[in-house]
């Protein structure tokens, strides 16, 4: 099933989004690494949902938006996107950084979100279990941190990329600066912007999904979310890392599907 890349205008910036599938509308907010139309989870979800996956400004080919600076800006911008798409109470799903934004959206407007999927979301901090500093991590180290099966993960990450081409480095640096520069506004140097004080406001039925081998956000964070949101349904997925959405897309989609 092919995803299409479309554009919708918000007050601040034109926003590009992948869309495809049919069924209940579902908004997917990507993590700090971004998302493509080939994303296994998007395609799996599209079997049962009309999927909308907006790119945060600066991600992929989309325009940057210097006016978005802090957590509230990100949260309201994401609501602006939902509005611009003409959606009411879509299933709201986010991975990692996207999970942090989705949780903030649900906490800020608790009556507008009835089904929430949080896949190894960022947003909490435990001094004894620091999340990995992705900003100082060198690119070649990333697969070790992102995947349960590192070799397979590395192959997925570099598929189709000419990593030995000198031009690749320049493009990589620009992409990285655009994307992680934007992500850094809510994740640098510590991916915590007060979410723990707002989680109590969430009313949505919530699926919390975590890979057992997550080395970016160790699974101890799943228990911290569960502790602060006792009503959420935790699905732990064995043999999956932070990129559980690639490694176990079907299991993640099934957990989201149970939200109804």
């Amino acid at each position: 099933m092919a995803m299409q890349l479309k554009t919708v205008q918000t007050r601040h910036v034109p926003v590009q989004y992948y869309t495809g599938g049919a069924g209940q509308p579902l908004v997917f907010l990507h993590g700090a690494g971004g998302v493509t139309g080939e994303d296994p989870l998007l395609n799996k979800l599209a079997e049962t949902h009309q999927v909308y996956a907006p790119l945060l400004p600066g991600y992929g080919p989309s325009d940057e938006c210097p006016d978005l600076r802090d957590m509230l800006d990100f949260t309201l911008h994401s609501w602006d996107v939902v509005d611009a798409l003409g959606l009411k109470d879509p299933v709201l799903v986010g991975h990692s950084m996207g999970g942090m934004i989705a949780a903030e959206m649900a906490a800020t407007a608790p009556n507008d979100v009835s089904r929430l999927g949080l896949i190894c979301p960022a947003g909490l901090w435990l001094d004894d279990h620091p999340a990995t500093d992705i900003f100082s991590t060198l690119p070649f180290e990333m697969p070790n941190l992102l995947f349960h099966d590192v070799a397979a993960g590395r192959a997925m990450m570099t598929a189709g990329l000419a990593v030995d081409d000198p031009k690749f480095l320049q493009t990589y640096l620009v992409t990285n600066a655009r994307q992680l520069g934007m992500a850094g506004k809510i994740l640098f140097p510590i991916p915590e912007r007060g979410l723990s004080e707002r989680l109590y406001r969430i009313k949505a039925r919530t699926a919390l999904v975590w890979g057992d081998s997550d080395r970016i956000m160790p699974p101890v964070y799943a228990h911290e979310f569960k502790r602060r949101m006792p009503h959420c349904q935790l699905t732990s997925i064995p043999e999956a890392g932070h990129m559980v959405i690639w490694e176990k897309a079907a299991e993640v989609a099934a957990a989201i599907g149970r939200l109804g």
Partner: protein
Amino acid sequence: MKFTWFNLMPWPDLPDDFREKNRSVWVDIDQKLFDPVRSHEVYNTYMDLLEYAGTVGFDGIGVNEHHQNGYGIMPSPNIIAAALARRTKDVALVVLGNSIALYNPPVRVAEEFAMLDCISGGRLVAGFPVGTSMDTNYCYGQIPALTREKYQEAHDLILRAWHEREPFAFNGRYNKLRYVNIWPRPIQQPNPPIHIPGGGSVETYDFCIDNTYSYSYLSFSGYIRAKALMQGYWDRVAERNAPDASPYRAGFAQTICVAETDEEAERLYSEHVSYFYNRCLHVYPGFADAPGYRTIKTIQSGALSQYAPPKGGYTQLSWKELTEQGHVIAGSPDTVRQRMEELIKGLNVGNIFCLMHVGNMPADKCMYSTKLFAEKVMPKLRNMFPDYADDDRFWCKPLARQAVPGSLPSERDAALVATQA
């Protein structure tokens, strides 16, 4: 020409196997390598050397700001400069500079620089770096993509604080201040001269041109590799129709070692140069450039590759390579003079930041090199730009009459105060 004697203040006792045992000299360097008792001597020797340089003919003595850094134990250059202000005279105090986005609120910089200018009698040359990604983002937690906006706001606030003569409200994005009204304010009017360290971004070129600030390139890789970057600046000066291309619009940092002969220079200094280039510059690449810290324009311009460390790092560079490629200008007074002329003409720079204390160089060698440079090299370079001899826009203007520290009346005279009518 303006020559500033600079000391980065490197920790002199990094072990031989430092690179093998540590991933970085900066940010997460091993705490245990710092010995506070030993630092008492190190700091005082380094400050003695700065004061010494102030007596042999240098125009300025220079300090800078780094954090959590094994080659720069000077998180607060203002503390060092304050101490130097008291024990030096005539020489400029070049603070290059304060990373103004890191001060909360940045009026602190306006105040401290004003204090330095007042204490020193108008001898301050002020520097406003953005700060490296290591310092600004990784050590001080600033969000990379917002650092430049915050820097810009800090700059505007500091300049207004120096210029306005009534209390004013400053409603910035990062600073909300109802009453800005610094006390004291600087002697130099309308403000002390300002130098901006930059790394090749067009935005910084324009910022300097628009405000008549001096653009300085503080590199460790020497004048030969700096050519393209500085040419980019001068091209921009021409393109923007700046009223002049005065060499004092630019500055450059250069490692310099002088001895009686070229052979003596190698014998005396090669171990200290090697200590600096091989040990002190061992920075974990993950800390070099937080995503978002540089503008997209700068990355796209490809400027980065022009001054990136040589492939494989500095570690493979020998004395011969370091001197031949210009990272280090070293040798007899004649060799050094000749190469300094190439630097000064080639880059068209009027301000030279002379890195004359290198790595773990002991005080005696440093003094020897410093004195030879001051006596046998500097005088011959003085008149490189006769057309701009009167350009004083980028240098301090001290008071003609300077207070003399330590000139209290005697205790006996003081005791008479009660008996005088």
